[in-house]
């Protein structure tokens, strides 16, 4: 293969890579279609007010906690190392419950519960927050319990 042909092939590859990235953008999970990726990282500017889903632990090993703990406050009960991208899973679980998609909900629960001891009672909650205010104080404007579960 000559160097001129190599150069043309490389330029062609780069163009194709960009175009495939554009084609899968917004159409595949995480804008990826292995081995292509759109590189659309951190593209959305987070909004000033948000609705987020998170997990609140209420009882462990049959004992009720003094107050429900957000998963971020309960490191001794929630092993985040075993749950990849936990916030994404909470959101997906909430979506699946709303859509009545039992298979996805069961899969999300299974993945979330990999980080919880068996027999843990927890709530999937929905919070309305001011993004910067919540970052500063961890105080939500409003919190609603969507569903309560016990880990297997």
């Amino acid at each position, binding site marked *: 293969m000559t160097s001129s042909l*190599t150069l043309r092939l*490389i330029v062609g590859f*780069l163009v194709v890579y960009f175009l495939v990235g554009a084609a899968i*953008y917004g159409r595949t999970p*995480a804008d990826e279609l292995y*081995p292509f990726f759109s590189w*659309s990282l*951190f593209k959305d500017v987070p909004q000033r007010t948000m609705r987020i889903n998170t997990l609140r632990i209420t009882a462990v090993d049959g004992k009720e906690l003094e107050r429900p703990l957000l998963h971020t406050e309960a490191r001794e009960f929630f092993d985040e190392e*075993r749950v990849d991208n936990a916030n994404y899973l909470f959101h997906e679980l909430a979506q699946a419950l709303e859509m009545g998609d039992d298979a996805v909900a069961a899969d999300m629960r299974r993945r979330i519960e990999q980080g919880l001891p068996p027999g843990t009672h927890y709530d999937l909650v929905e919070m309305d927050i001011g993004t*910067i205010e919540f970052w500063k104080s961890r105080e939500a404007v409003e919190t609603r319990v969507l569903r309560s579960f016990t880990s297997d």
Partner: protein
Amino acid sequence: MKKQWDELQRLFIDPDVLRKAAWCVPLFYYILEFMTFQQLMRYEQLGRVTAEPLWPVFWVGYLGGYAAFTPHIFLILLTAATTLGAAFYRYRTARVFVFLAVMQYQAYIMSLFNQEHDYYIPLFVSLFLIFLPNVWRGAPPLEERRRFLVIFWGAQAYILLTYTMSGFYKIVTFFGQFASGGAHYFSRDAAALYVAFWQMQFERTSVLGDFIVEHQMLSSLGLIAVLYILTFSIFVTARPRIHRAWGIALLAFHLSTVVSLGIIFIYNVLFVAAFFLLSPFAPEKNGWREMLRDLPIIGFIARAIL
């Protein structure tokens, strides 16, 4: 642009450039070896999660009673390949082995976890480098020397393209967010919102998180600089005089994600250093006026006044 392209064509046959590029190639394989060490530290994490395998690792589904050994198989494969690659990078067989192992390992960890992007650059750069002619022995003919540098340049171009695509989609998203009336990339509080949201997502703090939230205007100007660096990266491929300066700019961008969001792209930092701070195409001496003139967009103004 044509002038810069002609200059690059001249550099493709420069023996001095070839000598420097031949030293950068092993550096890439050493970085892959370093990545392997980091992956070995994830052993326990890999063993605790199961998922649907992506197509390159479909065979994992047929391991049956040996499924518990899946992390071992991938880590052994990756370790063997990157060690051989670091030692025998001159041989195409070793480079093919590295590419295949990287593809297998990447597909495996992407089957397990979301947001695993570290191995995209190694995957495609190792694919490019497979086709390098062996210029490390004897006196290779001119055509082989030129092909070696064209391929090396292609690897550089791929790395820069990934940054450009990242900037491009920020611009695409800006139009949507602006039209919907919400916060957008050029909002005064955009940087503060990035910090607050992503620190919450990853449960992290950062050196300058508080400062960015308190000084929103200043930090949002920084975001505009980031957009410029990312979006115009691909144009730097044909401007060897600013390869090093752009490498420093990309490192500054990576530094900014560490001090603001608390997120580190450690491997990208190493690849940028190996391919741009040490770019074989960059001249030994560089005047600041020439560099300014070569900058994308800014160069138009610089050429008019300098």
